[in-house]
Structures are given as structure tokens and as C-alpha cells.
């Protein structure tokens, strides 16, 4: 039985190389079919991963700890108990890269030119330099350092709207934790440009101490504790664990998807759109593959009829065709994956705007600017999934040719030529 199977495999192998052109066409269609989706997925998923990481590092981390009611009403008087104990515990966790203490204040920035609604984020500058891309986005002046007091960094569009530049002042109006209206003077230390209209137009960063002072918080209180994890892919599991072990009664651990639903929804929609296009592409490619497999089978009808006439069992013929498609899949699918990965690797570092045209600042997701430099994500499970999908699809495509061969009429076929 085993030797018979080996013989059929050998016949199948020899058979596919008898007509090299036909075989190469079939292999090429499977290879392209596997390669194109692999390429697109590597590029698109790379953009999403980069975006999520950038946004998480800029805002409140991959996982955020905050007051249980803060999401519904981000008020300054909602902070959590024992934040420093939780912070210390998180910093001792192997899965945590870094934590960032944040004080968020919503209010209005005024100058003689006018007023703009802003979001002021008080952060620890020394940590922010190591995790966020904002310090690298400074185009004028300098980034913050510890103890900067009233010095802040503002976005380029905000600076334009308020008509301020480095060294100039603006007045910030907000509510403190008692709900009282507070006005404070700030001075511009640096101006950043990220390409995002929202961030550049309405975002301000200051040292956390001055933000606490403005809000009326004590030196241990924060609005949010952002957690940057080493492996963002496992943040959901990490979140569940922390919620069980660390969270206080009035605190909750949330994922970046819950903190930034706009970004999560946009990515989900974008992924759905890309997947839909992929499905269309896959249908077209599978149809081409089906045609080549069917043709390569049907043009050998006389050969199969002869084999059946000399006593070959129909099941052996069916098995041979099935093995031929398995061999096609085994050769072309891994090569297709390699092709997709290779092209994606080749495009790494290119600016996408050079290819698609337009302005980098127009590339925003949920109000956050995207890095337009291509940085593919080579996720082995994802690449394997695509490859296995196409391998199985090819096997399914061989069902009809096998069925047609099983219905072959030996006499009709042999007489017809």
C-alpha cells in the first residue's frame, strides 16, 4: 500500500513536469495568489501596528489605569487611590516596559490673537523622551525637561492659531478639581509638528508638576497611568491579569481600544475594507488557478483514458490528480509567501507618499497622524495563515477536475482522437 502510494506520488511528480509550460503557469498563478495578499497584509498590518504603538506611547499607553468613571466624564476630580503603589508594582512587572503618569486638563488657550480649545497633558519629560515620538517632532525650540514649570510645548497649528512662537506666552483657562475656573500663564518652550491636524492644532504638553498645581491635585495624584507593555499583542491578557490583581475598587484597567475608540474603529474599518478587497482579489486569483488546474487535467483526458483502459483503478487516478495539486500547493504557496515577504521587505523604508502622492498630514487615523514610512510587519502566524489558506483552496479547486476524470468514458475519449 505504502509502495503503491509512493509510486503514485512519483507518477504525479513526473507528470507535472512533463509539460513544463503548463506547470509553470499553474505554479505562477498560485504563487501570485499567495504573494499579493501576503505583501498587502505585511504592509497594512505594519502601518496599524506602528500607528497603535505611536499613539499608545504618545497618549495613555497600550493599557491605561484610571478612575472607573473617568471614561464617561473625564473630569479632573476623578483620580484613583494608591496610584503610586500600583505604579511601583507595575514597574516591577516583567511584561511592562514603562509606565507614564499623566494629568489631563481640558480648557482654552488665549492670546491677544484669539482663543483655541486645547488638551493639556502633564507628563514626566525624562520618561517621555524615551518612549514618545513627540520629542523628535520638535521643529522649533526644545522639548521639555524636568522642572520646566510654566514652559510647555505646543503644536505647529496651535502656535499659528494663537500667533505664538518660542518664548511667547498664552493664558490657559480650565477647571480645577473643585470645579472652580482657573487661569494660568504658560510660555512656549518648543513647537512640534506631527502631521496630525488634531495633535498639532489642539495638543499641549507640560511638566506634570505644573499640571497638578493647576488642577489642584496633590503630588501623588494622576488622571491616568499609562502602561507601555513590551509585547502589545498580549496586552488584553495582561489587562485581565492586572484588573484581577492590582485594580482598586474605584480604578479600572482599559485597553488602548477603549481609551481611543476612534483609532480602534478606524483601524477596524480599514482592515475590513482591505479584507474585502483581498476577498475580491482572492476570488479572481482562485478563478485563474481553477482554470489552469482544470485545463491541465482536461487536456490529459486521453492519457487518463489510456491508463484506465490498461487496468489502472479510478481511485488511483483521482489520487494522482489530488497529489499533483498538493505538489503544486507545496511548491507555490511557500514561494508565494516568500515573494510577498520579499517585496514587502524591499519596500521597507520607502515613503508611501512618494508612491500614492498627496500630503503626509492628510494621512490620519482617528485624528492621529500616520507615519508614512513603510514599516512592514512580518507576523509569522499571519503569513502562515495566508499560505495555508491558499494551499487548502488549491486542494478544493481540484475537486471538480477529479470529479470530471471519474466520469470519463474510456471508449468515447479513445475513439475521439
Amino acid at each position: 500500500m505504502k509502495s503503491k502510494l509512493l509510486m503514485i506520488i512519483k507518477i504525479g511528480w513526473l507528470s507535472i513536469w512533463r509539460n513544463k509550460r503548463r506547470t509553470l503557469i499553474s505554479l505562477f498563478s498560485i504563487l501570485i495568489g499567495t504573494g499579493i495578499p501576503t505583501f498587502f497584509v505585511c504592509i497594512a498590518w505594519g502601518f496599524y501596528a506602528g500607528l497603535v504603538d505611536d499613539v499608545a506611547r504618545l497618549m495613555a499607553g497600550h493599557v491605561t489605569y484610571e478612575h472607573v468613571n473617568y471614561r464617561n466624564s473625564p473630569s479632573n476630580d476623578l483620580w484613583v487611590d494608591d496610584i503610586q503603589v500600583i505604579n511601583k508594582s507595575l514597574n516591577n512587572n516583567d511584561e511592562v516596559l514603562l509606565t507614564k503618569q499623566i494629568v489631563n486638563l481640558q480648557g482654552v488657550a488665549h492670546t491677544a490673537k484669539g482663543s483655541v480649545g486645547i488638551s493639556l497633558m502633564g507628563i514626566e519629560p525624562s520618561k517621555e523622551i524615551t518612549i514618545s515620538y513627540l520629542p523628535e517632532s520638535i521643529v522649533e525650540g526644545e522639548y521639555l525637561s524636568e522642572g520646566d514649570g510654566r514652559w510647555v510645548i505646543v503644536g505647529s497649528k496651535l502656535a499659528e492659531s494663537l500667533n505664538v512662537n518660542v518664548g511667547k506666552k498664552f493664558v490657559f483657562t480650565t477647571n480645577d478639581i473643585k470645579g472652580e475656573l482657573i487661569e494660568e500663564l504658560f510660555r512656549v518652550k518648543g513647537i512640534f509638528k506631527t502631521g496630525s491636524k488634531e495633535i498639532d492644532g489642539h495638543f499641549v504638553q507640560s511638566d506634570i508638576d505644573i499640571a497638578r498645581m493647576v488642577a489642584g491635585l496633590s503630588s501623588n495624584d494622576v488622571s491616568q497611568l499609562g502602561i507601555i507593555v513590551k509585547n502589545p499583542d498580549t496586552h488584553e491578557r495582561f489587562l485581565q491579569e492586572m484588573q484581577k490583581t492590582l485594580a482598586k475598587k474605584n480604578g479600572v484597567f482599559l485597553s488602548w481600544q477603549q481609551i481611543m475608540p476612534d483609532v480602534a474603529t478606524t483601524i477596524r474599518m480599514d482592515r475590513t475594507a482591505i479584507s474585502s478587497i483581498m476577498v475580491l482579489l482572492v476570488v479572481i486569483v482562485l478563478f485563474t488557478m481553477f482554470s489552469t488546474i482544470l485545463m491541465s487535467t482536461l487536456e490529459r483526458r486521453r492519457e487518463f483514458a489510456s491508463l484506465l483502459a490498461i487496468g489502472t483503478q479510478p481511485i488511483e487516478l483521482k489520487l494522482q490528480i489530488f497529489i499533483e495539486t498538493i505538489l503544486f500547493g507545496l511548491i507555490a504557496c511557500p514561494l508565494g509567501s516568500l515573494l510577498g515577504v520579499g517585496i514587502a521587505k524591499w519596500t521597507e523604508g520607502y515613503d508611501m507618499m512618494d508612491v500614492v502622492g498627496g500630503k503626509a498630514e492628510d494621512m490620519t487615523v482617528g485624528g492621529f497622524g500616520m507615519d508614512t514610512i513603510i514599516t512592514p510587519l512580518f507576523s509569522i502566524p499571519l503569513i502562515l495563515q495566508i499560505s495555508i489558506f491558499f494551499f487548502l483552496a488549491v486542494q478544493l479547486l481540484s475537486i471538480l477536475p477529479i470529479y470530471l476524470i471519474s466520469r470519463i468514458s474510456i471508449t468515447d475519449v479513445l475513439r475521439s482522437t
Partner: protein
Amino acid sequence: MLDQFSTMMRLTIIATCVLFKVFLSSFAFASNLNPEKILDSVDDLYRSNTSYGTLTLSVTTTNWQRTLTLEQWSKGDDRHLIRVLKPKKEKGLTTLRVDNNVWNYMPKVKRVVKIPSSMMASSWMGSHFTNDDLVKQSRMVKDYTFSITYEGEREEKNIVEISCYPKKDAAVVWGKVEVIVYRDDFIPLHIIYYDEDLQLSRTLNFTNIQMMSGKMMPTQMSMIPVDEPGESTAIQWKKIQFDLPINDDFFSLRNLQQ
């Protein structure tokens, strides 16, 4: 010897003249006027223990113009109630300010809305004043360093000009404010606001000085922004009474809705 004496005398006279000149230029505007008192009088122009009055607010923009008739009550620096009397469409629209908080009552929907900090920059009643202008309780003497920079005749008026520069950490958007008042009674003529680059930003003009409730005061104020040519907001006081008995309870959310 005589020559030496005469040279010394000449030098002494020159030195005295130079010193006198320096002294004169340094104290060119020195007088017995107290700038702090002048600024306080400008700040307290329409303030008293209590006040009640009616006024019109005329807003002119490049696209539209409208006039509101308002009724206002105040107590101290921190309690104000302003109610729209005309036009009919907006009658009953009321703004209450207590300390740093501002509420608006909208009679059409019978709702009271507290103005959050994010709305402080929004225009008040569509004028060139913002909600923030309403809640500001700052006094110039507290937020600025100041000095008299001119005293004398200008445009046939005997005036005093006080230049105010914001203190280092004062929450003030201006780079400089010039307060120009009549020398005799300190009634303001103009308050001129400059930005941080000392570029003219807006001018508040005071005109039509009349005796009201036993007090001489300009009954018309007009705010003219520089960066919006052709636009202005004018306030015309029709009636004002000071030191009427008004309870603190009057400035309540309950009264806001009446």
C-alpha cells in the same frame, strides 16, 4: 587763577544744567497723581456695592448687525445677572455669574447651562466680548506694573496716560495696556490693548460722559478689534443706579430661571 576759576564755574554750570536736564527728563511726568488710584477708579467705574441698570448692546460685524436691550444687576465684584429684554426672540435669555462660574438660561428650552472652561473663549451673546471677559475679576494694579507715561494736552484734552505691563506670571494675554483718562476726574477715555509683540490689538473707547445716579461716567463703551476691520461692539448705558439693597439670594440659579 581767575581763568581757572571761570573754567570751573563754567563746568559747574554745564554739569548742573546736564544734571537738571537728566533730572527733568527722568521725572518728566512725575506729579502728585497716583497711578494706582487712577487704575482703581477705572476698574471701579461701573462697580459699586450693588448696581442695577439697563443698557443696549450693539454688535456690528461684516455680515450682520444686531442690538440687544439688557437689564443687569451686580453685587460686589463677583455677582452679576444679565437678562435680555429685547428683541422678543431672545427675551428672557439670562446670564448669571457667581465668582468664577457662569450659567446661561435659555427660556425657549427652559434649560440652564453651566458654561464650562472650554466655552470661556466663546463669544458672549455674539459680541466681541467672551464669556471669559465676563468672569474676569482681575484688577489692573494686581496684574500689572504701571507708571504714568504722559500727562498733559492731547487732542485738546487734558489727559493722563498710564502704561501697564503685565507682571511676570500674571495670567494676562496682553503685552501692554495703555489707560488714558481725563486728568481732572480720572474718567477713562481709551483703554488700548497691545499684544506681546506690542502690536495694537484692540481699543476700548469711552464716550458720552453723563451724570448717572450721582456719578459722572461715560455712558457709551465701544470695543474695536484691530484684526477684524469694520467690526465693533458698543454698550450704551440707558440707566444705572448704585447701592440698591440686593440680597445675595438674588444671584441664584432659581432666580436665573424666573
